């Protein structure tokens, strides 16, 4: 209840400030989204309204970002993505309220970008602005020369939003018998002692841009503690208890230009992550290990096309063979984009390629700017493989169209 009250307080305060004390600037978009699985098992008709209500002065700014989604087969969904107040001082900025905070140099991959939890209701398919969940936080920025010290305090924990029951994007782990779920420990009590703190030092200069960060946080994804009842060498009952655990991480990222291409690197050391294990002697079927999540990326232009490639590696340290996850998990991403007709027609291909399971998500997209602020999008999401993060959705190949009007 406390977290709801804090969020409501910030949202209402920001709305009142932005509408009463200053004449707000209102922008946003309306979007119609129609999509369906190629196998006919699922379809979506969604109309979205996204508003940005903003106002600013020389030493302050307000922003409220409400949204509404309407569906043909579901109740209206309304919310506020962001609602914050900015206060500007000589060398310090303060942002207080519900906000999305993005760190790191990776595109479409979350390594040091761990502050705003994800909304995975529709897997990784929505725009990244919609995947990231706003969190109530206080963000302090101190600027000196070309450097910035950023400290973020999150008073209570917000987990990853998982797909609803019955959603085609919900993956249920397989067990020998039907499990019973115990959600009694899933929620992290909203107390300051359960808050999260993140610190980042960053600099942007001619030689390179870099970030060094530290986080004391909760794992956004719950660990599934599995308690098995065994009788006569047979599993007769399973109780699954989702539970969030604290994590510490240190990391950093750099970006620089060399020989006409931009090189990016990002890495984080996660301390205290719980992994599921097949070792029957382990309590709750979990084991605690540290891991390193890293990325190397390159951006450039070739034959008039914008290209970007990333290699991502997740390595569990002091690996135990009973761990369900691979010791090293490698993924590639590839983005190719071509702008035509004076940047009114855009062809884009974005792909995730899982190297461990030979699976992939291929996302071709065509965008045509019918007029300033009016765009038509047609695309596809093609899942390849049978296992792995992407192959598990092999049945979910889909095509879609979107019409978006910005104002």
């Amino acid at each position, binding site marked *: 209840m406390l977290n709801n009250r804090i969020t409501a307080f910030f949202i209402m305060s920001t709305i009142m400030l932005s509408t009463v004390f200053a004449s707000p600037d209102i922008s946003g*978009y309306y979007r119609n989204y129609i999509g369906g699985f190629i196998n006919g098992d699922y379809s979506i008709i969604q109309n979205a309204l996204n508003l940005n209500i903003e106002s600013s002065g020389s030493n302050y700014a307000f922003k409220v970002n409400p949204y509404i989604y309407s569906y043909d087969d579901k109740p209206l969904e309304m919310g506020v993505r962001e609602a914050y107040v900015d206060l500007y001082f000589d060398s310090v900025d303060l942002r207080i309220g519900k906000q999305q905070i993005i760190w790191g140099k990776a595109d479409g991959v979350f390594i040091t970008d761990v502050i705003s939890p994800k909304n995975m209701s529709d897997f990784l398919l929505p725009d990244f602005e919609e995947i990231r969940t706003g969190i109530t936080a206080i963000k302090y920025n101190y600027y000196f020369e070309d450097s910035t010290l950023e400290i973020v305090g999150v008073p209570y924990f917000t987990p990853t939003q998982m797909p609803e029951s019955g959603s085609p994007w919900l993956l249920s782990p397989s067990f020998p018998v039907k499990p019973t779920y115990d959600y009694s420990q899933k929620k992290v009590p909203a107390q300051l002692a359960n808050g999260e703190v993140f610190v980042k030092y960053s600099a942007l200069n001619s030689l390179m841009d870099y970030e060094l960060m530290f986080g004391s946080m909760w794992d956004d994804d719950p660990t599934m503690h599995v308690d098995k009842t065994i009788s006569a060498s047979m599993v007769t009952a399973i109780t699954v208890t989702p539970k969030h655990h604290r994590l510490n991480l240190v990391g950093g990222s750099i970006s620089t230009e060399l020989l006409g291409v931009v090189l990016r690197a990002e890495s984080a050391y996660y301390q205290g992550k719980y992994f599921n294990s097949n070792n029957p002697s382990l309590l709750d079927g979990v084991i605690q290990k540290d891991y390193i999540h890293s990325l190397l990326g390159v951006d450039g*232009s070739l034959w008039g096309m914008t290209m970007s490639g990333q290699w991502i590696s997740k390595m569990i340290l002091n690996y135990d063979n009973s761990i369900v996850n691979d010791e090293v998990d490698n993924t590639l991403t590839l983005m190719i984009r071509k702008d035509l007709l*004076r940047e009114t027609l855009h062809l884009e291909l974005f792909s995730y390629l899982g190297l461990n399971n030979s699976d992939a998500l291929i996302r071709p997209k065509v965008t045509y700017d019918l007029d300033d602020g009016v765009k038509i999008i047609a695309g596809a999401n093609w899942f390849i493989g049978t296992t792995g993060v992407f192959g598990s959705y092999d049945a979910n190949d889909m095509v879609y169209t979107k019409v978006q009007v910005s104002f």
Partner: protein
Amino acid sequence: MNKIKLGVLLVLCVASVAVFAKEITGLKVIENVYNRPTAKDQSSDLTMTLINRRGDSRTRKIKQFLKVYANEEKKIMFFVSPSDVKNTSFMNISYNDESKPDDQWIFLPALKKVKRISSESSSDSFMGSDFTYDDLGERHPNEDTHKILRTETLQNEECFVVESIPKDKEELYSKTVTWIIKDKWIGLKKEFYDEDEELLKMLTNESYKKVSNYWVIVNSTMANVQSGHRTEMKLENLELDKGIEDGQFSERMMKRGL
């Protein structure tokens, strides 16, 4: 006696023309343009109107700030319209050392982060206009070989007509020809030739004025003669030497916006 005086005068005239011609080379003319006194800093509202062959138009509005330092020039642009690019910002640092490439960053509000981008794409179109990123920046005189083709009167101004050929054969244009006003060192017109040495684009500077003792071009049109598309560019609310703070050219301001 008069014939002698006339002869001496003629010799002096010929000699002075010879000296003038010897001193003023194509490189010198372009250097004079490059080194023309400019404000230490400036801010302005830039409006670009993109007009296609059928006469349909689209408008882009930008607020821009520029500051000149001893060895570099910093520029930051905030996109005001159209609505789908609003709050996008772009920062560029160019260096006097022509061997050093520009540093460029872009802030996309949907991604909420500042990204370094490659300056190699400087020959790409700027926001779908007929200007490339390179066209909008200053080109160092040493990057081309310059030759005065002739002098010519254009818009009642005496101009040098200078041909500039890139030393790097991989450049977007095979050559440019520029009409430069002799006493003001302002380019009035510029032709851009494609790799087949066919005329590709023509830049016309329609109006310029003196603001705070500096010559500033306020209206120009870049026309693509091959496609029939053109872009009109207008500078308004120009403020020079107002002492823009160094902090204006920073990641902080890119994210904050206008």
